[in-house]
């Protein structure tokens, strides 16, 4: 049952600084870290203490409210530091690699003949479970749930983001094994959304859907909305494409080898350096880009719309396949509000020639204005290809009106679906933050 999706609303931001479609192995990072903050709403309970030696795949901490969900060390080595913040909250668990990459071997399992319980148990034990993100709420999936469907997007539309087709080039076998394993866990189907001429269109055990259209057509949120929308009480799972290959690899080899292929993009990365780097989850940023002057350059783990801001001695986000370097835009612009000036800044607005001029743009992090009251209407709908009223949903989240949020479709959205609204809205409203807070409220009130 494949259904093609044609998305019309949205906005493709064409930016300078693309990565060359070539994968190289990144130099080994000496320190790796897992950051509990990457797993939204997870409260970590440490298993190992500072000084303990670990193998890749060994549990480092588990989730306090769902003890079966375990988080494993990505490499072998020694836990050298547990960095804590305010109220002793754990910020980072740092592991100094010993370079041997020993991994816990949990034995090969044939995904095709494995039972659902077997698959679930292996994913939970091995530390692969956190790759599964559930909708609603966009958090790590509950270990007891059976989702009505599983979505994987192999169609990349986010600006400059690492292209899934490139990342999976040499991982197709593992990817297939991962899909087969995951298909045991759902009562419905695994949906794989691909672009035109995809190398993944003959993957088995999944419904393949062709997607076409501008960003956010590649977001799983949009694909779920078009194919199998989330109703109240439903659970739908989503996974990153490379993570599916990591799961497949677990079944094929019995080992947890969390590779991460990172596209280094953005105008502040040297052109020769802009390619795909194969490293391991939690690697230090400096292992890929060296030391960066963060007064003038912003390091973003992820794409420019949804990534995390990092310093050059910090660690990659657990899930993201992109590392973006763009200039900080901390400069004044004389009379910058005059219509039809500053056309070099990308824009979806009618008061700039930016869209007419076309071409790729160099971007910086300037806010291009100041936060204001919500005045303009109709602009949010232009970049949200869902049957949802974004402005009304945002207002419901701001006022914390749970019934209204439910009615307006809070279960169907994740912050990343509102990233383009962050970008385009005239009032400089932080839409992603508002939606995240709204979802958090739903978690505590509804669960």
């Amino acid at each position, binding site marked *: 049952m494949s259904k093609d999706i044609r998305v019309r609303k949205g906005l493709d931001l064409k930016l300078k600084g693309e990565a060359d479609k070539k994968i190289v192995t990144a130099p080994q990072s000496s320190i790796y870290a897992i950051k509990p903050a990457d797993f939204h709403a997870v409260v970590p309970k440490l298993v190992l203490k500072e000084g303990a030696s670990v193998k890749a795949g060994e549990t480092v901490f588990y989730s306090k409210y769902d003890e079966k969900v375990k988080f494993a060390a990505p490499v072998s080595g020694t836990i050298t530091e547990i960095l804590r913040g305010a109220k002793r909250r754990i910020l980072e668990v740092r592991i100094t690699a010993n370079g041997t990459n020993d991994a816990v071997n949990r034995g090969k399992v044939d995904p095709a003949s494995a039972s659902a319980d077997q698959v679930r148990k292996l994913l939970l034990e091995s530390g692969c479970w956190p790759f599964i993100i559930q909708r609603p709420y966009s958090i790590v999936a509950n270990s007891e749930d059976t989702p009505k469907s599983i979505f994987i997007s192999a169609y990349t539309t986010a600006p400059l983001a690492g292209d899934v087709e490139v990342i999976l080039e040499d991982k197709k076998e593992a990817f297939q094994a991962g899909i087969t394993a995951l298909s045991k866990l759902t009562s419905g189907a695994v949906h794989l959304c691909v672009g035109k001429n995809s190398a993944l269109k003959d993957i088995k055990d999944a419904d393949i859907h062709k997607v076409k259209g501008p960003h956010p057509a590649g977001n799983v949120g949009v694909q779920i909305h078009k194919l199998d929308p989330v109703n109240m009480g439903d659970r739908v799972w989503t996974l990153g494409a490379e993570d599916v290959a990591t799961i497949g690899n677990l079944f094929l080899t019995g080992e947890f080898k969390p590779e991460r292929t990172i596209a280094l993009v953005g105008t502040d990365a040297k052109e020769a350096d802009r390619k795909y780097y194969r490293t391991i989850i939690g690697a230090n940023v400096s292992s890929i880009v060296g030391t960066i002057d963060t007064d003038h350059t912003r390091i973003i783990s992820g794409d420019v719309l949804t990534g995390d801001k990092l310093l050059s001695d910090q660690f990659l986000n657990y899930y993201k396949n992109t590392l973006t370097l763009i200039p900080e835009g901390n400069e004044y612009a*004389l009379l910058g509000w005059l219509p039809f000036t500053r056309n070099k800044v990308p824009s979806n607005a009618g008061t700039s020639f930016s869209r007419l001029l076309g071409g790729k743009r160099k971007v*910086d992090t300037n*806010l291009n*204005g100041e936060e204001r*009251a919500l005045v303009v209407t109709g602009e949010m709908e232009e970049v949200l290809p869902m049957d949802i009223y974004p402005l009304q949903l945002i207002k419901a989240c701001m006022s914390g009106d749970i019934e209204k949020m439910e009615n307006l479709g809070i279960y169907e959205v994740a912050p990343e679906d509102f990233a383009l609204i962050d*970008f385009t809205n*005239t009032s400089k409203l932080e839409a992603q*933050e508002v939606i995240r807070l709204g979802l958090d409220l739903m978690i505590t009130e509804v669960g």
Partner: protein
Amino acid sequence: MKWVRKKLDQARKPFEPGQKLEKFAPAINAFDTFLYTPNHTTKKGAHIRDVVDLKRTMITVVFALIPALLFGMWNTGAQYLYQDMGLDNVTDVPFWDAFIEGAILVMPLILVSYIVGLTIEFIFAIYRGHEVNEGYLVTGLLIPMIFPVDIPLWMLAISVAFAVLIGKEAFGGTGMNILNPALTARAFAFFAYPLYMSGNAIWVHQGATDGISGETILGTLAQGKSVAYSFFDAAAGFIPGSVSETSTIAVLIGAAILILTKVGSWRIILSGFVGAAVMGLIFNAFGLNALMEFKWYMHLVVGGLSFGLVFMATDPVSAAQTMKGKWIYGFLCGFFGVMIRVFNPAYPEGIMLAILLMNVFAPTIDHYVIQANVNKRKKRLAKAKSNLQTA
């Protein structure tokens, strides 16, 4: 230009957090950000942002108003001078004489509107501790454009104060108001000072000589007299009326700017004109009196209808916010505008009342549009549940 920036940075110092004048920061910020788009960078959410901001949007509306404003200045001068000089035709008045005379008459209105309105806006921004919103740049220009030219300045000042205080700030400021502030000002003056806002002696500047007349077309019709102006006169705007509302052509140039820049909703403008035409056609079909017989296409070009639909009805804060809602809202603005005109000759300026009425109903329209979406979602849930039970 670096020199200007340096001076500004120096001037800002006492307003910075922890300094003496910290509270008054919104005031200096308003001037600073007017000159320079600030150097703020993104702190959370998307790391890059669109070039558009509220200043740019509001200034675009001001630009769109300029054709109507300039024409209004000329027309104000010309309407007065051609009678004063005893000419046969409005267009016989030398262009610059008319324009300068009009500008002298209109500029004080604009100044009073901006000074009174912006003062209140600044006080509220400082009191509430937020930045000065740019909305008043548009409102402040709209208000003098829809008043009769001879309105005493103190009445204008009171109307402006009423509109900003009661019409906007009482509801929480920019973005929260239910009624369009400019129309609120006009409606206030209309009911508080009817002698200065209606009748046949106020639409053209009176000057020193007596006996200058200038009845609006709608006023003439309301008395059952026949109209002496052609369709072209009315569309071009060579007719008496409020300062800048008379020229449909100048207003449509503004409409084109608003639509091409996506600042004004083409849905509201288009459906508004359609609504007015439909109501006009219905009245024409009955044709029981002079007002009802007044051709439907004439309705579109006389009075403030086009100005109201293009610049007032499209105010995004007080209009409907959903796409479908905008079609309904715009249509009813035009529809009721003509209806009030015809049925109630005491209020010939029906479009003002129609838009204010629809401002009040816009949230209701949106409610029903959104409810349809909510019901669709509930139906889907119910279907999913029943599928589950049968399975």
